[in-house]
């Protein structure tokens, strides 16, 4: 199963459309979409405008591959699950988000085990073609870096001057 998710803020049809076109051309119906209220015809597929946190985690865990915008919740959860994820950044110029932070994060995340960045629709389809061979990295810990944990713990517990 491939889980396609675009987050709760805005639809992202530029991602959903090529994925559903690809699935139809390949005769696949084992995709689940969380489309955020977009306009793409998803008949024949399991589709939800939004999913709650429990369902989102269940779908992420069940998926062989995840396709998503560069939302940190989805990305971090996939890394925790050791799940391969294809991400395509939203672009401010196309009114898909307010600024280009998704492209900034994508540049930083690109190359990390289990994360596959599609910079446009063509690259997205090319990655979907390879979906069966994409592998997640080893599951990461569910905690922030030890340095950040230690710094915050010491700071919060110290008496305020």
């Amino acid at each position, binding site marked *: 199963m491939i889980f396609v998710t675009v987050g709760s803020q805005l639809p992202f049809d530029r991602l959903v459309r090529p994925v559903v076109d690809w699935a139809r051309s390949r005769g696949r119906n084992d995709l689940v979409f969380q489309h955020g209220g977009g306009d793409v015809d998803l008949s024949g597929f399991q589709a939800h405008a939004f999913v709650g*946190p*429990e369902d989102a985690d269940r779908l992420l865990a069940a998926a062989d591959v995840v396709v998503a915008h560069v939302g*940190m*919740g*989805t990305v971090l959860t996939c*890394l925790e699950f050791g799940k391969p994820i294809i991400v395509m950044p939203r672009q401010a110029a196309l009114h898909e988000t307010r600024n280009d932070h998704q492209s900034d994060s994508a540049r930083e995340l690109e190359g990390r085990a289990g994360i596959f960045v599609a910079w446009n629709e063509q690259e997205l389809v090319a990655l979907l073609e390879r979906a069966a061979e994409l592998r997640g990295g080893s599951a990461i810990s569910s905690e922030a870096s030890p340095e950040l944990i230690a710094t915050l713990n010491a700071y919060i517990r110290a008496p305020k001057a």
Partner: protein
Amino acid sequence: MSARRPRVLAISSRGGHWVQLRRLARAFEGCETVWASTDAALAPRVAPERFFKVPEASRWDRIRLVWMALRVAWLVIRLRPAAVISTGAAPGYIALRVGSLLGARTVWVDSFANAAELSLSGRKALAFADLTLTQWPRLGQRLAAGEAPKRGIAYYAGSVL
């Protein structure tokens, strides 16, 4: 149940901000942690610790923003936390502001997604937060272990990843 444990309010929007906030949980060891976010479905994830739902609002919707600010302010006044920490966005920013007025220690952890510059909320938090952290070394000054942070400076001390 020691009454001496400092109370920490950990607050963020749902989605990526929340997943990042949860990755900091161990930093609150030794504290009484109270969680708050914009999705009531997250409550079971922090049980038996307490959870409060706050309204969702972005800075583009004035009326909801005022309602959210009032609700968050009331929560902070009621809880009187010793420390308030947030990974973003709007509700966390308001909680930090109110916490700061009430003498709480305030910590802003800018989202991992802001890899090219601090978020707008993060830049505003710099003015009053006791500690502002970026998750990117090039966006902040290194905070050494035990160093007392200064207001108005963005520091780096690790990331949620």
